[in-house]
């Protein structure tokens, strides 16, 4: 995949062109002198010093501490949390608090709902993005560029802009408090289409598609036997990213769903935070329950998610 070439269209013609022109210019200079300087190693290949490790460790602690502390607070009780100094180590109330959060705050239902919602959204986004991404990357059709521009343009539109009519639609269809009201509007993603297009531009040789065509394969066979296998790594990454985003989505779910109907985890947590259950340690137990599945996924697939974001970043 040629990262630099595919980054330019993402960031608008004029800017990209200028940027790469500048780079080319400097490249020429660097190339000439680089030969003499070989062996010394490039600037970015330098090993990190002690300070680097210290700062990064500090930042890591800052990143992880609130999460660890969620677990600590969830394992205490309300009285202990209302004392100074705050607790720094685990107490014995974790399972009791988890149980209260599970039953009283509807967390069990919420976790089930969220899994369903995020799973459907991820599956839909991956499927539809791959199809559209393939069409934009490898096929030629009328209005292609205009339609692609439309896709890119919609990435910039905030969700607030459509929330009122969406709510009216949901009310009209009597979908209030039903999960499809959250799933359907988010089932496709412009980012996904763009992401898959950029990936397939590089990862899927045009000859492969042509060869399948010459053999008499229909477009659908090409999609099934050529595109899907080639796109699998990017599909996995897009699926994970979409799942995380859908799991954490907040604005629309708390408008479309209620705490006592069929809440997602985020909606249930909102209820906790608004003090339906005043016990802080139970609130933290709920927060822990809502975060734990993703944290586990991060421990297992963190590497791939990081890889996906880095890949998507350069290209998106």
């Amino acid at each position, binding site marked *: 995949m040629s990262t630099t070439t595919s*980054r*330019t269209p*993402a960031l608008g013609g004029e800017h*990209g062109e*200028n940027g790469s022109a500048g780079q080319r210019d*400097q490249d020429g*200079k*660097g190339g000439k*002198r680089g030969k003499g*300087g070989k062996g010394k190693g*490039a*600037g*970015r290949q330098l090993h990190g010093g002690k300070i680097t490790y210290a*700062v*990064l460790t500090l*930042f*890591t602690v800052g990143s992880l501490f*609130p*999460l660890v502390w969620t677990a600590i607070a969830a394992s205490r009780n309300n009285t202990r*949390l*209302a004392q*100074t100094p*705050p607790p720094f180590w685990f107490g014995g109330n974790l399972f009791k608090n988890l149980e209260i959060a599970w039953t009283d705050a509807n967390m069990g239902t919420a976790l089930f709902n969220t899994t369903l919602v995020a799973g459907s959204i991820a599956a839909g986004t991956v499927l539809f*993005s791959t*199809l*559209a991404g393939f*069409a*934009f990357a490898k096929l030629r059709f009328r209005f292609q560029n205009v339609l692609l521009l439309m896709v890119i343009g919609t990435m910039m*539109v*905030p969700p*607030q*802009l459509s*929330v*009122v*009519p*969406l709510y*009216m639609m949901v*009310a*009209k269809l009597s979908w209030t408090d039903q999960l499809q009201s959250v799933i359907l509007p988010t*089932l*496709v993603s412009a980012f996904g289409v763009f992401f898959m297009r950029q990936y397939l531009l590089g990862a899927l040789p045009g000859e492969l598609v042509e060869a399948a065509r010459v053999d008499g394969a229909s*477009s659908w066979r090409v999609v099934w036997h050529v595109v899907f296998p080639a796109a699998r790594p990017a599909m996995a990454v897009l699926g994970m990213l979409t799942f*995380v985003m859908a799991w954490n989505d907040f604005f629309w779910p708390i408008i479309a769903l209620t705490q006592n109907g069929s809440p997602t985890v985020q909606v249930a*947590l909102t209820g906790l*935070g*608004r003090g339906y259950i005043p016990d802080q340690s139970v609130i*933290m137990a709920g*927060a*822990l329950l809502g975060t734990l599945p993703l*944290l586990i*996924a*991060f421990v297992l697939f*963190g*590497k791939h*998610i*990081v890889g996906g*974001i*880095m*890949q998507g*970043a350069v290209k998106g």
Partner: protein
Amino acid sequence: MATDAPAAPSEKEGAAPATDQDAILREERRRERRSRWYRRDVRWSPYALIAPFFVFFLAFGLFPLLYTGWASLHRVELTAPTDMEWVGLRNFSRLLSDDFFWNALRNTLTIGVISTVPQLLMALAIAHMLNYRLRGSMFFRVAVLTPYATSVAAATLVFVLLFGRDYGMINWALNMVGIDPVDWQNGTWTSQFAVSTIVIWRWTGYNALIYLAAMQSIPDDLYESAALDGASRWQQFLHVTVPSLRPTILFTVVVSTIGATQLFGEPLLFNGSAGANGGSDHQFQTLGLYLYEQGWVNLHLGRASAIAWTMFLILLLIGAVNWLVSRRLRKSS
């Protein structure tokens, strides 16, 4: 044309036996059908492939977007969303004379600046360090990204506790170094600072990875030649890394600005039990929260639509300014 074509060869080969001719004819027809079908497939299947996206996009993206504009010109109440009464621009003029709107706009800008600027600067620094050859670099990368996996709701609930006035850990730590406890929730600046902290915590690592990805595609030659010219590490960072990252930085600025304009979950939940007013004195009510309050607490959907469109116009304005500034910067360098 499709029907003429198979007939043409049969005329030429008029002398051939009838059965042969039939077979040839059938074969010709079949081939013709297949190529017609193939052409049709090549011509129309791209549209079939992009159709699912556009069907959903039109239904749940474009239509609502435009309809918001229509609704903003009406009086619409949540209690009876189908009864729309034309009021022209009254929702907008009302908005402009509403102190709470200006307050929310001010808060959104302030919180946006004090969350985005440190966030991106820190992300740049972290990315630069992650770009060194490190032992356990994957661990650091995953660790800094972990907050990204946390939801707004979960993160805000934790930070509400950490920023607690009487027993919060932050005030306790401040007390250790001799600073009086701060009432994070009730002050204007302090509450906005606290809300920004949540944003910064969740998004710095994500932005750092975006920068890191871009840094890794900077050719080594640039650093080599800079080093030969006697540039220190800091100078290399300033004169090689940052200029090469300019498109990526612009991208993150745009994305973070959009995110900051929509800020909603953090101020909603930082408030605890008080609902959508963004603090006792609206001290950290953002535009997103104000929209929610107008639409779903005060039940004025028309006014909420007007706020949505105003937010969109502000975004466009910021986008234009961004573009002008970046063009200026490019020209001057």
